[in-house]
Structure formats: structure tokens, C-alpha cells
């Protein structure tokens, strides 16, 4: 139990959940400030899960390197518990924050985007290290947001690659997001993140 606690502390588990909470509060305030207008919710639908995913990605940073790998305890289990815990808690926070939003598909969009961005963050952590895990989801999220407006009246339908901007009922974007999450989580759980400091600027 002590090992699990120390592992989570080393991975900023507390700050990551607090960060998710702050993001959720921002989303709740955003929805409260713009009642009755589903299209104005898009910034919150994209950037709240993006922020939560970036925080999750950064929390994969391993401060101990090789020393940690000499542990007799299976690291994959700890990594899975850590990632699953942060992801689950942040999902819960975001879904709760969106309860009052004037969109029936808001929880689905938030969960899908959190899953996809978290997967991208993990893949980025695998290559660039945990501290820079935010780069890929951030660049992709901003490009996708710029690529698409809303799908409702007055907007245009974004290209399929911009899956964070699709409606919650779109099965292809949900499939892309879940696949990205599974690949990203799987890679980090099995192999850990890149611990080379070369790429860390």
C-alpha cells in the first residue's frame, strides 16, 4: 500500500486530480454563463478534456528512471492503476460539470474527447517523455478546433479527421478516440514513458 501511495505521489496524482477539478469547474462556469446556446459550448467541449488530458499526460513523468525499473513489483500494474485512476476521476468530474449544459450529447462528447486526447498524450509521452506529453494533444486539438465550427445550424460540418468537433452520436470519431486511448494507455502501461532527458529542452 505504501508503494502504491509513493508511486502516485511521484506521479503528481493529487495535483492531476485537482487540475481536472479546476478544469471541470471552468466547464461548469462556462455552461452556466451560456445557457440555452449549445453552439457556444464547443470551446468547453474541446478544451476542458484537452486540459485534463494534458495534465494526465504530464503526470506520467517518471522521476526515478532506471532505479524504478529494478523494483520487483510489476510496474505495469501501477501504471495502469495510475492512468486509469486519473482518467476515471477526470471523466467523472467532467461529466458532472456538464450535467446542466443545454446539450444532450455533452457527456458523450466530453468523454470521447478526453479519451482521444489522453491517448494522444500517452503516445506523445512515449516518444518525448512525460513532461512534454501535452505537445501532441495540444497541437492536434487546436488544429481540430480551428478546422470545425459546430454541426448545428449556422455552422459547418468539420472534416472527419477533426473528431473532437463531431457530435456525440458520431460512431467513427468515438471509435478513433477509444482506439487512440487503448493504444496510448497500452503503450505507456507496457513500456513506460521515454525517460531520456535529451528531448526535454
Amino acid at each position, binding site marked *: 500500500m505504501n508503494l502504491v501511495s509513493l508511486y502516485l505521489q511521484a506521479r503528481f496524482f493529487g495535483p492531476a486530480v485537482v487540475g481536472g477539478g479546476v478544469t471541470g469547474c471552468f466547464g461548469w462556469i462556462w455552461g452556466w454563463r451560456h445557457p440555452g446556446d449549445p453552439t457556444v459550448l464547443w470551446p468547453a467541449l474541446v478544451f476542458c478534456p484537452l486540459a485534463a488530458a494534458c495534465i494526465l499526460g504530464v503526470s506520467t513523468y517518471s522521476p526515478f528512471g532506471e532505479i524504478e525499473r529494478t523494483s520487483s513489483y510489476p510496474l505495469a500494474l501501477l501504471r495502469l492503476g495510475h492512468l486509469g485512476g486519473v482518467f476515471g476521476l477526470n471523466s467523472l468530474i467532467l461529466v458532472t460539470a456538464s450535467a446542466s449544459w443545454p446539450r444532450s450529447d455533452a457527456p458523450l462528447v466530453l468523454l470521447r474527447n478526453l479519451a482521444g486526447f489522453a491517448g494522444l498524450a500517452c503516445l506523445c509521452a512515449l516518444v518525448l517523455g512525460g513532461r512534454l506529453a*501535452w505537445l501532441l494533444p495540444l497541437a492536434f486539438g487546436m488544429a481540430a478546433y480551428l478546422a470545425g465550427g459546430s454541426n448545428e445550424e449556422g455552422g459547418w460540418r468539420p472534416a472527419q479527421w477533426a473528431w473532437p468537433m463531431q457530435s456525440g452520436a458520431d460512431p467513427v470519431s468515438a471509435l478513433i478516440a477509444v482506439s487512440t486511448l487503448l493504444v496510448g494507455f497500452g503503450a505507456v502501461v507496457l513500456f513506460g514513458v521515454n525517460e531520456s532527458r535529451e528531448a526535454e529542452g
Partner: protein
Amino acid sequence: MTRGWWLLRIETRRSLGMWILPAMVLLAWYGGRERSPDGVALWPDTSAAIGRASVLLGPIIGAAAAWAAYRDRRRRMDELVATMPFSGIGRDLTVWAATLAWACLAYVLGGAYHFVMTVRDATWGEPSLSLMVAGIVALASYAALGFFAGTLLPSVFTAPLVAIALYLVPGMAFSLNHGSSIRHLSPWSAFDPSRYGVLHGVWPNDAVPLSLWLLGLAGASLAGGALLRRRSVAAGAVLVGSLVIGVASASALVRPMPGPEAARAALIPYEPTCTTNVVPVCVHPAYSAVLDRTATVVGGVLEPIVGLPGVADRAEQYAYIYRPPPEGTLIINPYNEFNGVDHLAQAVAGATISGGEPLAGGLPPSPTAAQCAVERWLVRRIGLEPNSRGVSCMPSTGYETFLEYEQLNVEIDEAAARFGDVAPSQRRAWLEQNFFRLRAGELTLPDLP
């Protein structure tokens, strides 16, 4: 070679910007695309689009600067570096400049592609260097703000949160403040598509005051960072000077947009190019390449209703705020990547059926469900799909939840299909009898044949 130059070289090689250069070039290329249709290349649009790439690159480089700002502390080297025979402020400026250099390189590389393509294909206008330079100044400002945030709040979470804030705050200041002149302080405003086009070029061009405002912001952020490190008269003076420049240029930016009189005076005269397909269709000569396709869409939509009272007998690319439009003219915008031919078809159908008098100014009233059914039929009968880009006609009332919205959407589609199944002669007779009431919004879905 001076110590500063050597340090800049070292910092440039150590910068995170080098690692993310390919991604930044891609973003600069993507952000710098302009949306003219094939065969049309306009310098005002390209200039603004190249500048607009900065709003996409800026948050990334702001995050990279925030990351670089606390690098020494992160590696527990801050005390060691402090013993260097080089001022701390100078070191900070070097780190900021090195990070910025990579963003500028990406901006130039991404923009160069669009610039060269427009040099090759331009159909109208001249490049606006001030807009493109404003993009570089915006990058400097984003990097300085990020650097300041990284100095103030050194944490592993600072960089990504800074990037999101640098994207959201200017974006939302622009998007959510319609009618407020505060939005002109956002870099998004200077590159807004409503500010450029073939009718008036880049107008009003706020690139210079925006650049000064952003320079003031950058100077204040860097001076603020220097003051956090060590209080000095020079940093204080730079802070005050930057604030003065920033406030002065902000006051020049925060003003209402020029009215119709000034807009009319800024209009660049031209002789339209025309063709006839059911009705005469005219566009600006820069859009000659898309005239035939535009005329096909306009003519196709109007064909079943041409001759009915209130239906335009001519269509022209035109902005009615500049001068009174000719009698019976439908105002159109040629299609582009965002507003495709389906959007053009929907706009023509909408202006004719539910847009009130075609020549009326201001926003049209919300369409009724019956009007939407006829509009969707008009668009579908020429092989276009009104729902393909989410631009389909939809009443703004009559539903409260997403499910009710979807149900009404389906009912309108069913009514449109029924209307399309009616024999052409019978449909024309019905239209001749009921078109006035349909346009006035007096009919409901069950009233349609």
C-alpha cells in the same frame, strides 16, 4: 563574436522549438491556408491567412517559452547558472529569443508556401506585408506572455495550461464579443475574414496598431519577468514604456468599426463578369473561374420558382451595405472551401423563400418549417445535400431539447420529400397560388402538398 551571440546559438540548439519545428511548420501551413475556390487566388485573403497562422502557432510557442523559462530551476541549475558572468535579464532574453526564432522559422516556412502559390496564381490584389509582419509580432507577444507565466509559476503543468489559455482567451475575446470593440484587441480580429475581400481589399487594416499593442504586451511581459528576477531601473523603464505604447495603441484599436458611409468610400470599383443560366449571374472578375459553376447552382435552385412574385430575376456577388443594389437582384457569395456549393445553393434558396424581400438589409427572420421543407427540396433537386455541412435550413424555435430538434429535422425532410414527389405541373400551380403565403411564413408543414 559577442558572448550574447554565442549564448543565443547555444540556446537555439537547446530549445524545445527545434524538436517541435516540423509540427509547427505543419500548423503554420494549415493555419495559413485561405479558402478561395480553385482558380481564385486573392492577395488580401492570402496575406490575412498567413498572418492568421500566428494564432495557431502562438499558443504552442508560448507554452515552449513557459517551459524554457523554468528550465534551470527544473534541473536544479539555477544557482549554478546565476554565477555566469552575464546578466540574468540578458539570459532570459536569449532564451526567449531562441524559442521565438524557431516559431518565426516555422511561420516563414509555412507562409512561404502559400505566398509562392499566390504569386503564381493571383487573380486579384496586392500582398499586405503589414498583416504578415503582424503575425510575427503576435508570435513574439505570445512567447513573451508564456515566458512570463513560466517565470511566475514554475510547474510542470504551467506549459500546457498556458497554451490553452493563450488560445482560448484571445479566441473567446474575439468570438464572444460581437458588437463590442474589445474584440479588436485580439490578434484574431486583424485576420478576421470580414476585414478583407475583393470589394475593399484589406479594410479596415489594423495591422499597425495591433502590432504596436502586441509589442507593448511583449515588452511589458519581458520587463515583468525581469523585475521578478531582480528589481532594476532599466526593467522598470521598459515596463512603463511598454505599458504606454500598449495603452496608446489599444485605445486606437478599441473603437467601433467604420460605418456604411466610410465603407462605401473604400469600395474599389470593378466591372462584373456575367453569364446567364435561367437568370443572369454576375461575379467580381477575380472570381471568373467559378462563374459557370456558380451560375449552374443559382440557376438550378431558381429554375422551378423563377417568374413567381418576389423571386429575383438576377444574381450578383455584391455587398448591399456599399450601395443600393439593383432592383430584383439576389445577392450571392461565390462558394469557397468553407461555404461550398451546397452552402451557396442553401443561401440562394434561403434568401428567396425565407429571407424576406431579397433586397432587404439586416438579418432575415427565422424560417418556418414549411419554408425549410421547400428550401431543402430546392437544394436536393439539383443533386446537393443541404445537410452535408450542417447548413441546412432549420427554424430557430419549436424545440427545446436536442431530441425535439432532431424530430423536427426529420419531419421537415419528410415534407421536402413529399413536395418533391408531386407532379411538376401540380407543384407549379400550388406554388403560384401559395408562394406569397409561403414567403410570409403563414404556412405550416401540413399545408404543403
